[in-house]
């Protein structure tokens, strides 16, 4: 059995919380009952004051750190930042990471059985919003006996959930970490999402979302969606450095098979994704991204929308992120300052584009660790539980 790194949370086992109290959704429908699958790392202290909630991004899930078994090849998606001695130090904090409703990794979603019809939910699963997710996350917190999170932290779509937490449950969040996010999608962001959705929906195997009942998977559509998405996650520089114009063989083949390394990479990413992710979940998650805009009900005035927030914010962006570029984080930061809220902002130099939020980068880690250690100090968590 291979040995796990010493700064890993080690082998973790997902848990499932079942909820019977109906959840009213923004779309007007109600989920009568649902499951949330989650993982925890570290120990909840006696005062229950050291809990940190991690919110996942578009294709994320509950497995944020550690390994499901000692043979697992790759650790959880945010393992670079969660673990003993890491930015989110599990010797101090109790970390909760869940799979959002509508997901395809264990929480109730399109691949779950609809108790009313007896069929799989499929495309009939209700449309979710960031607000709905946060509502369900608060119920999970209730279940775990966490009245107030020391911090709620997330990147990308996860950062939007953090923002929503600060607005919907200001008394339950002591600090907010909003990383590589935006207060709302731009027309270009929505356009990319729509291309991804059309790729899936126009796949002949999609069957209006009932592909499972036809024994099919809209693989080509999902693959295309992921390929488009992946381009927006990387920077031009990162792609250039990684692949340049490198060819797989010595010369052109004058055909449409894979020739350039970047083609090979994108196809591989697309294939892997299409074998592991549910198409209806992908569609639903992109819509949740599109819908998020807390300023909309305040006539577009973000500062006014932020009025309910009480906690200090850390906002982080990355220089080469062109999906949610630094200017979008600045928009949030400026509105927070205008609203008189406590906020710090760092724009991290990175070549990795949007994906930088997932990676270890010395300055990113320094900023993140400084934020978390200040929280630990404020909450008197210096002595490890």
């Amino acid at each position, binding site marked *: 059995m291979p040995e796990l790194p010493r700064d890993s949370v080690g082998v973790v086992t997902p848990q499932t919380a079942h909820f019977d109290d109906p959840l009213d959704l923004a779309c007007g429908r109600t989920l009568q009952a649902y499951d949330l699958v989650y993982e925890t790392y570290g120990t909840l202290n006696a005062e229950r004051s050291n809990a940190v909630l991690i919110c996942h991004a578009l294709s994320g899930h509950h497995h944020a750190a550690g390994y499901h078994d000692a043979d697992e090849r790759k650790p959880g998606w945010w393992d670079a930042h969660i673990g003993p001695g890491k930015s989110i130090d599990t010797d101090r904090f109790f970390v909760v990471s869940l799979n959002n409703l509508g997901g395809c990794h264990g929480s109730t979603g399109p691949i779950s059985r609809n108790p009313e019809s007896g069929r799989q939910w499929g495309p009939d699963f209700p449309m979710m919003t960031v607000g709905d997710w946060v509502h369900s996350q608060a119920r999970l917190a209730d279940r775990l006996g966490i009245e107030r999170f020391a911090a709620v932290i997330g990147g990308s779509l996860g950062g939007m959930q953090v923002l929503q937490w600060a607005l919907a449950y200001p008394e339950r969040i002591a600090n907010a970490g909003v990383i590589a996010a935006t207060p709302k999608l731009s027309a270009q962001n929505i356009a990319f999402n729509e291309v991804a959705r059309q790729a899936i929906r126009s796949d002949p195997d999609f069957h209006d979302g009932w592909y499972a009942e036809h024994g099919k998977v809209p693989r080509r559509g999902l693959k295309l969606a992921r390929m488009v998405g992946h381009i927006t996650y990387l920077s031009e520089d990162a792609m250039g450095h990684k692949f340049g114009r490198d060819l797989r063989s010595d010369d052109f083949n004058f055909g449409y098979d894979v020739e350039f390394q970047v083609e090979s990479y994108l196809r591989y990413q697309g294939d892997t994704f299409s074998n592991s992710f549910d198409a209806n979940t992908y569609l639903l998650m992109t819509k949740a991204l599109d819908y998020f805009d807390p300023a909309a009900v305040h006539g577009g005035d973000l500062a006014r929308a932020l009025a309910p927030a009480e906690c200090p914010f850390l906002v982080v962006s990355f220089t080469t992120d062109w999906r949610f570029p630094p200017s979008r984080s600045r928009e949030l*930061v400026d509105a927070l300052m205008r609203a*008189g809220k406590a906020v*710090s*902002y*760092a724009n991290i130099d990175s070549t990795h584009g949007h994906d930088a939020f997932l990676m270890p980068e010395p300055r990113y880690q*320094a*900023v993140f660790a*400084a934020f978390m250690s*200040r929280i630990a100090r404020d909450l008197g968590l210096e002595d490890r539980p």
Partner: protein
Amino acid sequence: MKRADLTLIHDWIPEGAHILDLACGDGTLLAALARDKNVSGYGLEIDPDGITACIARGVNVIEQNLDEGLANFDDDACDLVVMTQALQALRRPDRMLDEMLRVAGEAIITFPNFAYWRHRVHLGIRGYMPVSKSLPHAWYDTPNIHLSTFNDFEQLCRDKGLIIVDREVGIGDHEGHWTSRLWPNLFGEIAIFRVSRG
């Protein structure tokens, strides 16, 4: 707080003020003001280590290049703007002064006085660009691209119709010595000004 200019500024800032600290460094001033005088506000900084230090001590810090202006702040966004030892490193100090007194009615500014007698000795007698405690860099790698004197700054304030509320000198250990009070442009190493809109 050891730096003479920071101690003085600390005394000048009223209880409970909402301030902006431009080029706030590691957040020493804002942290002390929050602790002692219930002052709130934001620091602006571009140095990564300074930003990390601010975040670690719980000072609100925004990564922002001052040469790009303060357009993201409304008119009268705060009570007071502070800028210590940074004016001389900006591309257009005159425009920054306008911006500072747009976002607040009052500004506190400190900068190294180029007419300090030691600097004069360096340049006027020895014929070298001055290097001192307040101007520690060599001519080729200095960030200080717009050096000025007490007289220059007062002239600029007059031209802009600004009111000089206070003027002090900081000369490190000898702060407040009678010679520097009488002849600040000659004996003051650090110029400290409090100005307000005319």
